Protein backbone atom coordinates (compact mmCIF):
# COMPACT_ATOMS: atom_id res chain seq x y z
CA UNK A 1 0.00 0.00 0.00
CA UNK A 2 2.60 2.48 1.09
CA UNK A 3 4.72 1.56 -1.91
CA UNK A 4 1.85 2.34 -4.22
CA UNK A 5 1.32 5.66 -2.53
CA UNK A 6 4.99 6.49 -2.91
CA UNK A 7 4.85 5.82 -6.64
CA UNK A 8 2.13 8.39 -7.20
CA UNK A 9 3.21 11.28 -9.43
CA UNK A 10 4.76 13.88 -7.21
CA UNK A 11 3.15 16.74 -9.05
CA UNK A 12 -0.40 17.07 -10.18
CA UNK A 13 -0.68 17.15 -13.92
CA UNK A 14 -1.23 20.71 -15.05
CA UNK A 15 -4.25 21.15 -17.25
CA UNK A 16 -5.91 18.16 -18.88
CA UNK A 17 -3.16 15.64 -19.37
CA UNK A 18 -3.11 14.50 -23.00
CA UNK A 19 -1.24 11.37 -21.99
CA UNK A 20 -3.78 8.93 -20.67
CA UNK A 21 -1.52 6.04 -21.51
CA UNK A 22 1.32 6.86 -19.13
CA UNK A 23 0.18 4.05 -16.84
CA UNK A 24 1.44 1.68 -19.50
CA UNK A 25 4.92 2.11 -18.18
CA UNK A 26 5.41 -0.15 -15.19
CA UNK A 27 6.49 1.53 -11.98
CA UNK A 28 9.66 1.04 -10.05
CA UNK A 29 11.88 0.80 -13.11
CA UNK A 30 14.79 2.96 -14.07
CA UNK A 31 17.31 2.20 -11.36
CA UNK A 32 20.83 3.01 -12.52
CA UNK A 33 23.82 1.51 -10.74
CA UNK A 34 27.41 2.20 -11.72
CA UNK A 35 30.41 0.78 -9.84
CA UNK A 36 34.06 1.69 -10.30
CA UNK A 37 33.43 3.29 -13.67
CA UNK A 38 36.50 4.48 -15.52
CA UNK A 39 36.82 5.79 -19.02
CA UNK A 40 40.08 6.44 -20.82
CA UNK A 41 40.06 7.70 -24.37
CA UNK A 42 42.88 7.06 -26.79
CA UNK A 43 43.46 10.55 -28.16
CA UNK A 44 46.14 11.50 -30.68
CA UNK A 45 48.19 13.20 -27.96
CA UNK A 46 47.99 10.13 -25.72
CA UNK A 47 45.42 8.59 -23.41
CA UNK A 48 42.89 10.93 -21.81
CA UNK A 49 41.32 9.77 -18.57
CA UNK A 50 37.87 11.28 -18.64
CA UNK A 51 36.49 9.42 -15.63
CA UNK A 52 38.16 7.54 -12.80
CA UNK A 53 36.63 5.12 -10.26
CA UNK A 54 33.19 6.60 -10.22
CA UNK A 55 30.23 5.12 -8.37
CA UNK A 56 26.75 6.29 -9.11
CA UNK A 57 23.25 5.28 -8.05
CA UNK A 58 20.07 6.76 -9.35
CA UNK A 59 16.74 5.79 -7.82
CA UNK A 60 13.75 4.94 -10.00
CA UNK A 61 11.88 8.11 -10.81
CA UNK A 62 14.63 10.38 -9.51
CA UNK A 63 15.62 13.58 -11.30
CA UNK A 64 19.40 13.77 -11.15
CA UNK A 65 21.50 16.63 -12.48
CA UNK A 66 25.15 16.20 -13.44
CA UNK A 67 26.84 19.55 -12.99
CA UNK A 68 30.37 20.73 -13.60
CA UNK A 69 32.67 22.82 -15.76
CA UNK A 70 33.09 21.68 -19.32
CA UNK A 71 35.54 18.86 -19.83
CA UNK A 72 34.83 17.22 -16.47
CA UNK A 73 33.29 14.13 -18.03
CA UNK A 74 29.55 14.83 -17.81
CA UNK A 75 28.86 13.76 -21.37
CA UNK A 76 31.16 10.79 -20.97
CA UNK A 77 29.19 9.57 -17.98
CA UNK A 78 25.90 10.11 -19.79
CA UNK A 79 27.15 8.27 -22.88
CA UNK A 80 28.24 5.39 -20.66
CA UNK A 81 24.76 5.13 -19.16
CA UNK A 82 23.27 5.36 -22.66
CA UNK A 83 25.51 2.55 -23.88
CA UNK A 84 26.97 4.79 -26.59
CA UNK A 85 30.46 4.10 -25.25
CA UNK A 86 31.77 1.21 -23.14
CA UNK A 87 33.63 1.85 -19.87
CA UNK A 88 37.32 0.98 -19.75
CA UNK A 89 36.53 -0.68 -16.44
CA UNK A 90 33.67 -0.93 -14.00
CA UNK A 91 30.12 -2.17 -14.24
CA UNK A 92 26.93 -0.40 -15.15
CA UNK A 93 23.44 -1.80 -14.85
CA UNK A 94 19.95 -0.49 -15.40
CA UNK A 95 17.37 -2.40 -13.37
CA UNK A 96 19.97 -5.06 -12.83
CA UNK A 97 20.73 -5.65 -16.52
CA UNK A 98 24.18 -4.70 -17.84
CA UNK A 99 24.11 -1.87 -20.36
CA UNK A 100 25.20 -3.27 -23.73
CA UNK A 101 24.39 -0.50 -26.18
CA UNK A 102 21.79 2.17 -26.94
CA UNK A 103 18.42 0.59 -26.33
CA UNK A 104 14.79 1.58 -25.83
CA UNK A 105 15.18 1.41 -22.07
CA UNK A 106 17.02 4.73 -22.26
CA UNK A 107 15.59 7.69 -24.12
CA UNK A 108 18.21 10.25 -25.16
CA UNK A 109 17.84 13.98 -25.77
CA UNK A 110 20.94 15.61 -27.22
CA UNK A 111 21.98 19.26 -27.13
CA UNK A 112 20.83 19.95 -30.68
CA UNK A 113 20.55 18.68 -34.24
CA UNK A 114 19.54 15.17 -33.34
CA UNK A 115 16.12 15.14 -35.01
CA UNK A 116 16.10 13.20 -38.26
CA UNK A 117 15.93 16.05 -40.81
CA UNK A 118 14.50 13.77 -43.51
CA UNK A 119 11.41 12.98 -41.47
CA UNK A 120 8.57 15.33 -40.65
CA UNK A 121 8.11 16.28 -37.02
CA UNK A 122 5.40 13.69 -36.47
CA UNK A 123 7.42 10.98 -38.19
CA UNK A 124 10.33 11.75 -35.88
CA UNK A 125 8.13 11.22 -32.84
CA UNK A 126 6.46 8.15 -34.36
CA UNK A 127 9.84 6.57 -35.12
CA UNK A 128 10.29 4.85 -31.75
CA UNK A 129 6.76 3.42 -31.49
CA UNK A 130 7.11 2.23 -35.09
CA UNK A 131 10.42 0.50 -34.44
CA UNK A 132 9.06 -1.18 -31.33
CA UNK A 133 5.91 -2.31 -33.13
CA UNK A 134 3.56 -0.39 -30.85
CA UNK A 135 0.03 -0.08 -32.17
CA UNK A 136 -0.80 3.11 -34.04
CA UNK A 137 2.52 5.01 -33.88
CA UNK A 138 1.02 8.11 -35.47
CA UNK A 139 -1.62 8.58 -32.84
CA UNK A 140 0.96 8.04 -30.11
CA UNK A 141 3.12 10.62 -31.84
CA UNK A 142 0.23 13.05 -31.98
CA UNK A 143 -0.41 12.58 -28.26
CA UNK A 144 3.21 13.33 -27.39
CA UNK A 145 3.39 16.27 -29.77
CA UNK A 146 0.44 17.90 -28.06
CA UNK A 147 2.12 17.16 -24.74
CA UNK A 148 4.94 19.50 -25.81
CA UNK A 149 2.48 21.88 -27.47
CA UNK A 150 3.56 21.24 -31.05
CA UNK A 151 0.61 19.35 -32.54
CA UNK A 152 0.17 22.23 -35.00
CA UNK A 153 3.61 21.55 -36.46
CA UNK A 154 3.18 17.83 -37.03
CA UNK A 155 3.77 17.98 -40.76
CA UNK A 156 6.67 20.46 -40.70
CA UNK A 157 10.30 19.58 -41.43
CA UNK A 158 12.47 19.86 -38.30
CA UNK A 159 14.70 22.46 -39.97
CA UNK A 160 11.77 24.85 -40.18
CA UNK A 161 11.34 24.92 -36.38
CA UNK A 162 13.13 27.16 -33.88
CA UNK A 163 15.79 25.64 -31.64
CA UNK A 164 13.40 25.50 -28.68
CA UNK A 165 10.71 23.79 -30.71
CA UNK A 166 13.21 21.26 -32.03
CA UNK A 167 14.24 20.38 -28.49
CA UNK A 168 10.57 19.94 -27.53
CA UNK A 169 10.17 17.54 -30.45
CA UNK A 170 13.32 15.76 -29.28
CA UNK A 171 11.81 15.35 -25.81
CA UNK A 172 8.51 14.10 -27.26
CA UNK A 173 10.40 11.63 -29.44
CA UNK A 174 12.42 10.30 -26.53
CA UNK A 175 9.34 9.91 -24.32
CA UNK A 176 7.13 8.29 -26.96
CA UNK A 177 8.59 4.84 -26.25
CA UNK A 178 7.90 5.22 -22.50
CA UNK A 179 11.55 4.65 -21.52
CA UNK A 180 12.21 4.01 -17.81
CA UNK A 181 15.26 6.30 -18.08
CA UNK A 182 15.59 9.61 -19.88
CA UNK A 183 19.10 10.95 -20.51
CA UNK A 184 19.51 14.60 -21.43
CA UNK A 185 22.84 16.16 -22.43
CA UNK A 186 22.60 19.93 -22.07
CA UNK A 187 19.26 19.84 -23.89
CA UNK A 188 18.66 23.55 -23.38
CA UNK A 189 22.29 24.64 -23.73
CA UNK A 190 21.83 26.19 -27.15
CA UNK A 191 18.68 28.15 -26.24
CA UNK A 192 18.36 31.76 -25.18
CA UNK A 193 17.78 32.45 -21.47
CA UNK A 194 14.04 33.17 -21.80
CA UNK A 195 13.26 30.07 -23.81
CA UNK A 196 15.44 28.00 -21.57
CA UNK A 197 13.59 29.07 -18.42
CA UNK A 198 10.23 28.21 -19.98
CA UNK A 199 11.54 24.88 -21.24
CA UNK A 200 12.70 24.00 -17.73
CA UNK A 201 9.22 24.56 -16.35
CA UNK A 202 7.70 22.60 -19.22
CA UNK A 203 10.09 19.73 -18.66
CA UNK A 204 9.10 19.51 -14.99
CA UNK A 205 5.42 19.50 -15.95
CA UNK A 206 5.97 16.69 -18.41
CA UNK A 207 8.18 14.74 -16.04
CA UNK A 208 5.48 14.95 -13.36
CA UNK A 209 3.20 12.92 -15.62
CA UNK A 210 5.72 10.09 -16.02
CA UNK A 211 7.63 7.99 -13.57
CA UNK A 212 10.78 8.39 -15.61
CA UNK A 213 14.24 8.50 -14.10
CA UNK A 214 16.02 11.54 -15.53
CA UNK A 215 19.76 12.16 -15.74
CA UNK A 216 20.23 15.73 -16.86
CA UNK A 217 23.63 17.15 -17.81
CA UNK A 218 24.15 20.88 -17.48
CA UNK A 219 26.83 23.40 -16.64
CA UNK A 220 24.21 25.89 -15.43
CA UNK A 221 23.94 25.92 -11.62
CA UNK A 222 20.45 27.44 -11.50
CA UNK A 223 19.18 24.96 -14.03
CA UNK A 224 20.49 22.03 -12.02
CA UNK A 225 19.00 23.27 -8.75
CA UNK A 226 15.68 24.20 -10.30
CA UNK A 227 15.16 20.82 -11.94
CA UNK A 228 16.80 18.18 -9.82
CA UNK A 229 16.10 16.13 -6.71
CA UNK A 230 19.84 15.72 -6.40
CA UNK A 231 22.76 17.56 -7.98
CA UNK A 232 25.94 15.63 -8.57
CA UNK A 233 28.81 18.11 -8.79
CA UNK A 234 31.64 16.68 -10.82
CA UNK A 235 35.35 17.22 -10.50
CA UNK A 236 38.04 17.53 -13.12
CA UNK A 237 41.45 16.04 -13.67
CA UNK A 238 40.54 13.27 -13.58
CA UNK A 239 36.79 13.42 -13.92
CA UNK A 240 34.69 11.99 -11.12
CA UNK A 241 32.15 12.96 -8.50
CA UNK A 242 33.13 15.78 -6.15
CA UNK A 243 30.03 16.12 -4.01
CA UNK A 244 26.34 15.41 -4.10
CA UNK A 245 23.81 18.00 -3.00
CA UNK A 246 20.22 17.01 -2.21
CA UNK A 247 17.79 19.66 -3.35
CA UNK A 248 14.92 19.83 -0.87
CA UNK A 249 12.88 22.39 -2.73
CA UNK A 250 9.15 21.66 -2.80
CA UNK A 251 7.45 20.52 -5.98
CA UNK A 252 5.72 21.62 -8.13
CA UNK A 253 8.36 24.24 -8.83
CA UNK A 254 7.95 27.39 -10.86
CA UNK A 255 10.32 30.10 -11.98
CA UNK A 256 9.63 32.29 -8.90
CA UNK A 257 11.45 29.69 -6.82
CA UNK A 258 14.75 30.99 -8.12
CA UNK A 259 14.39 34.04 -5.87
CA UNK A 260 13.81 32.03 -2.70
CA UNK A 261 16.29 31.95 0.16
CA UNK A 262 16.76 28.19 0.09
CA UNK A 263 17.52 28.33 -3.63
CA UNK A 264 20.10 31.00 -2.94
CA UNK A 265 21.65 28.85 -0.28
CA UNK A 266 22.06 25.94 -2.69
CA UNK A 267 23.41 28.24 -5.35
CA UNK A 268 26.10 29.60 -3.01
CA UNK A 269 27.12 26.16 -1.85
CA UNK A 270 27.36 24.70 -5.35
CA UNK A 271 29.03 27.79 -6.76
CA UNK A 272 31.96 27.34 -4.37
CA UNK A 273 32.32 23.65 -5.29
CA UNK A 274 32.37 24.40 -9.00
CA UNK A 275 34.70 27.33 -8.63
CA UNK A 276 37.32 25.13 -7.04
CA UNK A 277 37.08 22.75 -9.97
CA UNK A 278 37.18 25.45 -12.59
CA UNK A 279 40.24 27.04 -10.98
CA UNK A 280 41.99 23.69 -11.13
CA UNK A 281 41.68 23.82 -14.88
CA UNK A 282 43.29 27.26 -14.95
CA UNK A 283 46.04 26.45 -12.45
CA UNK A 284 46.64 22.78 -12.98
CA UNK A 285 49.75 22.57 -10.76
CA UNK A 286 48.63 23.65 -7.28
CA UNK A 287 46.12 20.84 -7.07
CA UNK A 288 44.63 20.35 -3.60
Amino acid at each position, binding site marked *: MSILAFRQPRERAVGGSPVAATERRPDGQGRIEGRGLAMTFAARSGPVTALESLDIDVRPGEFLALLGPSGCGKSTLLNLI*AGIIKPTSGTLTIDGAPVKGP*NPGCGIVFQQHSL*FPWMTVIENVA*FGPRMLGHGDPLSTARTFLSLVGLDKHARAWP*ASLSGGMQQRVGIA*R*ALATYPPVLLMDEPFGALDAQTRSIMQEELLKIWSQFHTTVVFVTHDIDEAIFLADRVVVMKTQPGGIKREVRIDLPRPRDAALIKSELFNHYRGEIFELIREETLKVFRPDNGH
Partner: protein
Amino acid sequence: MRFLPGPEQIQKWGWAIAGIALFLGLWTFAAFRMANAVLLPEPAAVVQGLVTLLEDGTLISDVAASMKRVLGGFAIAAVLAVPLALLMAFSRPVGLLLSPIVTFLRPIPPIAWIPIAILWFGIGDPPSYFITALAAFFPIFINSYAGGHSVRPEHVHAARSLGAGPRALFVRIYLPSAMPMIATGLRIGLGQSWMAVVTAELIAAHSGLGYMIQANRLALETGLVLVGMCVIGVLGAVMSIGLEVLEKRVLVPWKHP
Protein backbone atom coordinates in the same frame (compact mmCIF):
# COMPACT_ATOMS: atom_id res chain seq x y z
CA MET B 1 1.18 28.47 -53.03
CA ARG B 2 3.13 30.57 -55.47
CA PHE B 3 1.41 30.04 -58.82
CA LEU B 4 2.09 33.53 -60.09
CA PRO B 5 5.69 34.58 -60.56
CA GLY B 6 6.70 37.16 -57.99
CA PRO B 7 8.67 40.31 -58.82
CA GLU B 8 11.89 38.50 -57.96
CA GLN B 9 10.99 35.69 -60.35
CA ILE B 10 10.20 38.12 -63.17
CA GLN B 11 13.49 39.88 -62.62
CA LYS B 12 15.36 36.57 -62.77
CA TRP B 13 13.70 35.63 -66.04
CA GLY B 14 14.32 39.10 -67.38
CA TRP B 15 18.05 38.76 -66.86
CA ALA B 16 18.06 35.26 -68.33
CA ILE B 17 16.28 36.38 -71.48
CA ALA B 18 18.57 39.39 -71.78
CA GLY B 19 21.58 37.07 -71.52
CA ILE B 20 20.32 34.81 -74.29
CA ALA B 21 19.48 37.82 -76.47
CA LEU B 22 22.97 39.20 -75.92
CA PHE B 23 24.49 35.87 -76.92
CA LEU B 24 22.39 35.64 -80.09
CA GLY B 25 23.20 39.28 -80.90
CA LEU B 26 26.95 38.72 -80.60
CA TRP B 27 26.69 35.56 -82.67
CA THR B 28 24.74 37.33 -85.45
CA PHE B 29 27.22 40.18 -85.41
CA ALA B 30 30.20 37.83 -85.61
CA ALA B 31 28.62 35.81 -88.44
CA PHE B 32 27.88 39.03 -90.32
CA ARG B 33 31.47 40.28 -89.93
CA MET B 34 32.93 36.90 -90.86
CA ALA B 35 30.62 36.49 -93.84
CA ASN B 36 31.52 32.83 -94.28
CA ALA B 37 28.65 30.36 -93.76
CA VAL B 38 30.98 27.36 -93.61
CA LEU B 39 32.96 28.79 -90.72
CA LEU B 40 30.11 30.44 -88.86
CA PRO B 41 26.52 30.46 -90.12
CA GLU B 42 24.16 32.99 -88.55
CA PRO B 43 21.49 31.94 -86.07
CA ALA B 44 18.72 32.24 -88.66
CA ALA B 45 20.44 29.61 -90.81
CA VAL B 46 20.66 27.30 -87.85
CA VAL B 47 16.94 27.67 -87.22
CA GLN B 48 16.42 26.89 -90.92
CA GLY B 49 18.54 23.74 -90.52
CA LEU B 50 16.63 22.75 -87.42
CA VAL B 51 13.33 22.94 -89.31
CA THR B 52 14.74 20.82 -92.15
CA LEU B 53 16.03 18.11 -89.79
CA LEU B 54 12.76 18.09 -87.87
CA GLU B 55 10.79 17.71 -91.09
CA ASP B 56 12.80 14.79 -92.45
CA GLY B 57 12.67 13.10 -89.04
CA THR B 58 16.40 12.40 -88.73
CA LEU B 59 16.88 14.75 -85.79
CA ILE B 60 14.24 12.94 -83.73
CA SER B 61 15.82 9.55 -84.37
CA ASP B 62 19.31 10.88 -83.56
CA VAL B 63 18.04 12.43 -80.34
CA ALA B 64 16.26 9.18 -79.48
CA ALA B 65 19.43 7.16 -80.12
CA SER B 66 21.58 9.41 -77.91
CA MET B 67 18.96 9.65 -75.18
CA LYS B 68 18.56 5.89 -75.05
CA ARG B 69 22.32 5.45 -74.63
CA VAL B 70 22.61 8.11 -71.97
CA LEU B 71 19.65 7.00 -69.90
CA GLY B 72 20.59 3.35 -70.27
CA GLY B 73 24.22 3.89 -69.34
CA PHE B 74 23.26 6.25 -66.54
CA ALA B 75 20.80 3.71 -65.12
CA ILE B 76 23.44 0.96 -65.23
CA ALA B 77 25.94 3.23 -63.50
CA ALA B 78 23.50 4.30 -60.79
CA VAL B 79 22.39 0.74 -60.06
CA LEU B 80 26.01 -0.36 -59.69
CA ALA B 81 27.63 2.69 -58.13
CA VAL B 82 25.21 3.56 -55.32
CA PRO B 83 25.06 0.15 -53.61
CA LEU B 84 28.77 -0.45 -54.16
CA ALA B 85 29.71 2.92 -52.70
CA LEU B 86 27.46 2.44 -49.67
CA LEU B 87 28.80 -1.07 -49.14
CA MET B 88 32.34 0.32 -49.24
CA ALA B 89 31.44 3.11 -46.85
CA PHE B 90 29.78 0.81 -44.32
CA SER B 91 32.06 -2.20 -44.50
CA ARG B 92 35.67 -1.54 -43.67
CA PRO B 93 37.12 -4.66 -45.36
CA VAL B 94 35.21 -4.02 -48.58
CA GLY B 95 36.33 -0.39 -48.49
CA LEU B 96 39.98 -1.31 -48.00
CA LEU B 97 39.78 -3.96 -50.71
CA LEU B 98 38.20 -1.83 -53.39
CA SER B 99 39.46 1.70 -52.80
CA PRO B 100 42.85 1.18 -54.53
CA ILE B 101 41.08 -0.11 -57.62
CA VAL B 102 38.76 2.87 -57.66
CA THR B 103 41.60 5.30 -57.05
CA PHE B 104 43.46 3.89 -60.02
CA LEU B 105 40.53 3.62 -62.47
CA ARG B 106 38.98 6.97 -61.68
CA PRO B 107 41.50 9.30 -63.40
CA ILE B 108 41.16 7.47 -66.72
CA PRO B 109 38.86 9.68 -68.81
CA PRO B 110 35.95 7.93 -70.57
CA ILE B 111 37.41 8.89 -73.94
CA ALA B 112 40.48 6.77 -73.23
CA TRP B 113 38.20 3.75 -72.89
CA ILE B 114 36.75 4.15 -76.39
CA PRO B 115 39.37 2.05 -78.24
CA ILE B 116 38.96 -0.86 -75.84
CA ALA B 117 35.18 -0.43 -75.89
CA ILE B 118 35.24 -0.81 -79.68
CA LEU B 119 37.47 -3.86 -79.43
CA TRP B 120 35.20 -5.47 -76.90
CA PHE B 121 31.80 -4.39 -78.18
CA GLY B 122 32.20 -3.36 -81.82
CA ILE B 123 30.43 -0.33 -83.19
CA GLY B 124 26.95 0.91 -82.23
CA ASP B 125 24.92 0.74 -79.04
CA PRO B 126 26.97 -1.56 -76.80
CA PRO B 127 30.22 0.48 -76.71
CA SER B 128 28.18 3.65 -76.26
CA TYR B 129 26.36 2.17 -73.26
CA PHE B 130 29.71 1.13 -71.87
CA ILE B 131 31.14 4.64 -72.24
CA THR B 132 28.08 6.48 -70.86
CA ALA B 133 27.89 4.09 -67.91
CA LEU B 134 31.58 4.53 -67.21
CA ALA B 135 31.33 8.31 -67.38
CA ALA B 136 28.40 8.40 -64.94
CA PHE B 137 29.81 5.76 -62.62
CA PHE B 138 32.60 7.65 -60.90
CA PRO B 139 30.79 10.87 -60.01
CA ILE B 140 27.90 8.82 -58.62
CA PHE B 141 30.27 6.49 -56.83
CA ILE B 142 32.50 9.14 -55.27
CA ASN B 143 29.59 11.24 -54.02
CA SER B 144 27.64 8.26 -52.69
CA TYR B 145 30.75 7.07 -50.90
CA ALA B 146 31.14 10.46 -49.24
CA GLY B 147 27.41 10.37 -48.48
CA GLY B 148 27.84 7.01 -46.82
CA HIS B 149 30.30 8.59 -44.43
CA SER B 150 28.16 11.64 -43.68
CA VAL B 151 25.80 10.06 -41.17
CA ARG B 152 25.75 11.90 -37.83
CA PRO B 153 26.55 9.73 -34.80
CA GLU B 154 23.71 11.39 -32.86
CA HIS B 155 21.24 10.12 -35.43
CA VAL B 156 22.52 6.57 -35.12
CA HIS B 157 22.49 6.70 -31.32
CA ALA B 158 19.05 8.26 -31.24
CA ALA B 159 17.69 5.66 -33.65
CA ARG B 160 19.17 2.78 -31.68
CA SER B 161 17.81 4.18 -28.44
CA LEU B 162 14.41 4.21 -30.16
CA GLY B 163 14.64 0.53 -31.01
CA ALA B 164 15.99 0.56 -34.58
CA GLY B 165 17.71 -2.67 -35.65
CA PRO B 166 20.42 -3.00 -38.33
CA ARG B 167 17.95 -3.06 -41.23
CA ALA B 168 15.98 -0.05 -40.05
CA LEU B 169 19.24 1.77 -39.35
CA PHE B 170 20.34 1.25 -42.94
CA VAL B 171 17.04 2.09 -44.64
CA ARG B 172 15.86 4.89 -42.36
CA ILE B 173 19.08 6.51 -41.12
CA TYR B 174 22.14 5.73 -43.27
CA LEU B 175 20.39 5.88 -46.63
CA PRO B 176 18.60 9.21 -46.07
CA SER B 177 21.80 10.65 -44.55
CA ALA B 178 23.63 9.76 -47.75
CA MET B 179 20.82 10.84 -50.04
CA PRO B 180 21.79 14.51 -50.52
CA MET B 181 25.25 13.44 -51.71
CA ILE B 182 23.82 10.61 -53.80
CA ALA B 183 21.52 13.11 -55.51
CA THR B 184 24.46 15.40 -56.23
CA GLY B 185 26.36 12.44 -57.67
CA LEU B 186 23.43 11.52 -59.89
CA ARG B 187 23.19 15.06 -61.21
CA ILE B 188 26.90 15.26 -62.03
CA GLY B 189 26.88 11.70 -63.39
CA LEU B 190 24.06 12.41 -65.80
CA GLY B 191 25.91 15.46 -67.10
CA GLN B 192 29.11 13.47 -67.57
CA SER B 193 27.18 10.69 -69.26
CA TRP B 194 25.63 13.15 -71.69
CA MET B 195 29.00 14.59 -72.59
CA ALA B 196 30.42 11.11 -73.02
CA VAL B 197 27.69 9.93 -75.38
CA VAL B 198 28.59 12.62 -77.87
CA THR B 199 32.23 11.62 -77.69
CA ALA B 200 31.40 7.96 -78.07
CA GLU B 201 29.14 8.60 -81.06
CA LEU B 202 31.79 10.69 -82.78
CA ILE B 203 33.86 7.53 -83.00
CA ALA B 204 32.00 4.40 -82.11
CA ALA B 205 28.48 4.72 -83.56
CA HIS B 206 26.54 5.30 -86.76
CA SER B 207 23.63 7.16 -85.18
CA GLY B 208 22.97 9.74 -82.50
CA LEU B 209 23.78 13.42 -82.10
CA GLY B 210 27.55 12.90 -81.95
CA TYR B 211 27.52 10.92 -85.16
CA MET B 212 25.21 13.51 -86.73
CA ILE B 213 27.54 16.47 -86.11
CA GLN B 214 30.52 14.44 -87.26
CA ALA B 215 28.75 13.46 -90.50
CA ASN B 216 27.66 17.03 -91.18
CA ARG B 217 31.17 18.34 -90.58
CA LEU B 218 32.42 16.03 -93.33
CA ALA B 219 29.63 17.37 -95.58
CA LEU B 220 30.65 20.95 -94.71
CA GLU B 221 27.10 21.51 -93.42
CA THR B 222 28.22 23.77 -90.60
CA GLY B 223 24.66 24.99 -89.99
CA LEU B 224 23.57 21.43 -89.25
CA VAL B 225 26.62 20.90 -87.03
CA LEU B 226 25.47 23.89 -85.00
CA VAL B 227 21.92 22.50 -84.89
CA GLY B 228 23.37 19.35 -83.36
CA MET B 229 25.45 21.33 -80.87
CA CYS B 230 22.49 23.50 -79.83
CA VAL B 231 20.27 20.44 -79.38
CA ILE B 232 22.98 18.83 -77.25
CA GLY B 233 23.19 21.96 -75.10
CA VAL B 234 19.44 22.34 -74.69
CA LEU B 235 18.79 18.68 -73.93
CA GLY B 236 21.65 18.58 -71.44
CA ALA B 237 20.18 21.56 -69.63
CA VAL B 238 16.69 20.03 -69.69
CA MET B 239 17.93 16.75 -68.22
CA SER B 240 19.86 18.58 -65.54
CA ILE B 241 16.77 20.59 -64.60
CA GLY B 242 14.67 17.43 -64.64
CA LEU B 243 17.00 15.74 -62.20
CA GLU B 244 17.02 18.83 -60.02
CA VAL B 245 13.23 18.68 -59.80
CA LEU B 246 13.43 14.99 -58.93
CA GLU B 247 15.97 15.83 -56.25
CA LYS B 248 13.83 18.54 -54.69
CA ARG B 249 10.53 16.69 -54.84
CA VAL B 250 11.48 13.07 -54.29
CA LEU B 251 15.07 12.41 -53.22
CA VAL B 252 15.77 15.15 -50.67
CA PRO B 253 12.53 17.12 -50.17
CA TRP B 254 13.58 18.11 -46.63
CA LYS B 255 16.39 20.24 -48.02
CA HIS B 256 13.97 22.18 -50.20
CA PRO B 257 10.86 22.91 -48.15
